[in-house]
């Protein structure tokens, strides 16, 4: 993984990386990816007929994609709307600076 790839990946990840860290990550990630090569070589590539998509896990639910939730031993809950906490406590607790039921928010307009 070279400097250019790190910069591109950091941009994708919305992550600011300092120059000194970039150099360190370059070496460390190259070593890690080098270690992963053995796994890459051990398995067929997509061109050789391997599945192109995630055959194991459905990223939306983290369940194995090949089986229904029931087959995997799970069950889904009824898809119904339930009321939020009515007292606004949830929102207030999320704020670092709050008093009673009011909380301070950062200024967004000058």
């Amino acid at each position, binding site marked *: 993984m070279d400097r250019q790839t790190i910069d591109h990946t950091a941009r994708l990840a919305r*992550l600011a990386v300092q120059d000194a860290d970039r150099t360190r*990550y370059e070496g460390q*990630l190259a070593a*890690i990816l080098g*270690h*992963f090569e053995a796994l890459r070589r051990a398995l067929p590539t997509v061109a050789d007929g391997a599945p192109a998509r*995630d055959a194991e896990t459905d990223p939306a*639910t983290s369940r194995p994609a090949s089986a229904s939730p029931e087959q995997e031993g799970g069950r889904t809950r009824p898809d119904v709307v339930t009321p939020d906490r009515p007292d606004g406590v949830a929102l207030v607790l999320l704020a670092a600076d709050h008093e009673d039921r009011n909380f301070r928010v950062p200024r967004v307009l000058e």
Partner: protein
Amino acid sequence: MSDAVSLRSVTSIRDAVKDGRVKVVEVVDHVLAAIRGADSQVHAFLDVFEDEARERAEELDRTSRDDGAPRRLLGVPIALKDNICVSGRPTTAGSRVLKDYRPPYNAHVVDRLVAEGAVLIGKTNLDEFGFGSSTENSAYGATLNPHDLTRVPGGSSGGSAAAVAAGMVPAALGSDTGGSIRQPASLCGVCGFKPTYGSVSRRGLIAFASSLDQIGPLGLSVLDVALVQSVISGFDPGDPSSLSMESRDYVPTLSKDLDGLRVGVHRELVDEIANTEVRGAVLRAIETLRDAGARIVRLDDIDLMTAHAVSAYYLIAAPEASSNLSRYDGLRYGPRADAPDLNQTYQRTRGDYLGDEAKRRILLGTFALSAGHYDDYYAKAIQMRARFRAAYDKVFQKVDVLVGATSPVPAFPIGENCEDPLAMYQFDAFTIPASLARLPAASVPCGTTKDGLPIGLQIVGARGRDAAVLSFAFGYEQQRGFKVQPVDLIAKTTEMDQA
């Protein structure tokens, strides 16, 4: 309080409180004093609920004997890894990006503990978001191993393991993504259990890798671990990965009898361990099992692919982590960096407040998911995961449990592996396969090195056979010839001073 009451185990505390031999307030005061005495040396806790725990204890003393509810953890103080949400209390996941974050709700496991009469005692230290095997990656400082304060406690649930090992609490909850309960349990000389994926709700657990994360208990004995596991397991409609299984009591099925049980042994997990003291302790444990009547079955003809475990795991866990951590952008949680526009606000907040290992994993995960690399990395790791599942399915057609070392090494010195992340990742090699295959697995102390560092035996079972794993671990514990005692840090410090 009677001197005869032991405050070291979950069951003895619960029974003494129920019988009226001790008040919950006395138990909580004892635990708070133990934390004050030991935690200045160990740094296992990030937050201690001193006032709330006392109030809760007083409430339980006032009400519990009259209402007759059969609370299985009545009066038992329990610590929580700080990635488990407690309503209104700081929950940092060991990260500066969640500094001062207070969740508006309890994790499902917290509600279950409270409903059974437990007293929440505080939050324990961890590697940031669970990213590590030493608890050195916490933004709030490293936790030290009570057995040797110059060494790591393992991780990422190192705070929970150290708190139990030092006798500060009788039990704690951790979370395990690739070994984060079992490996610190091994390095700290306590019991730890990672349940089958989906058997404990993760609602209110701060996500690391959603297809792997699982909450589980740590304690001094298998009995204590089984009791806490009985309380926290079972279906939760609030967690889409929750398995459709009712809560069950794992305690009545614990059996001392190992006679005739088929115990799998594989060269990759035993004979090929490089550290001679770890290998020796595991081989002695296998002899103990054989002497107790268990049937040892060699499984060397099955390729367990242990050499690929670390690669497959990190190529799945890092992408999932990079996705889960995208929510920490300075808008929704925690602190925000000053920046002239929105994009730079995201970048600088994440750059300033996420730790080194978190950034490394975000970069690795984003790279593995990016166009042009997905098929070479993430897709192949997913294929390898399917192979792990198939290999372990074969194992459990032949045996009841598989045993081996939990960690390839005992506790290592603080700072020794900080600059070599790949070396650190290798410490998970034995615990990762059970995580990838979603299997239940326990770590039980099986001996020590000549320097007194604990060594753990890992016991893995078939998916859903959590009761069998816990019962086997209990059976081994009864046979192994020693009882785990918490480390007396005051005596240890005196010894060191005299030396």
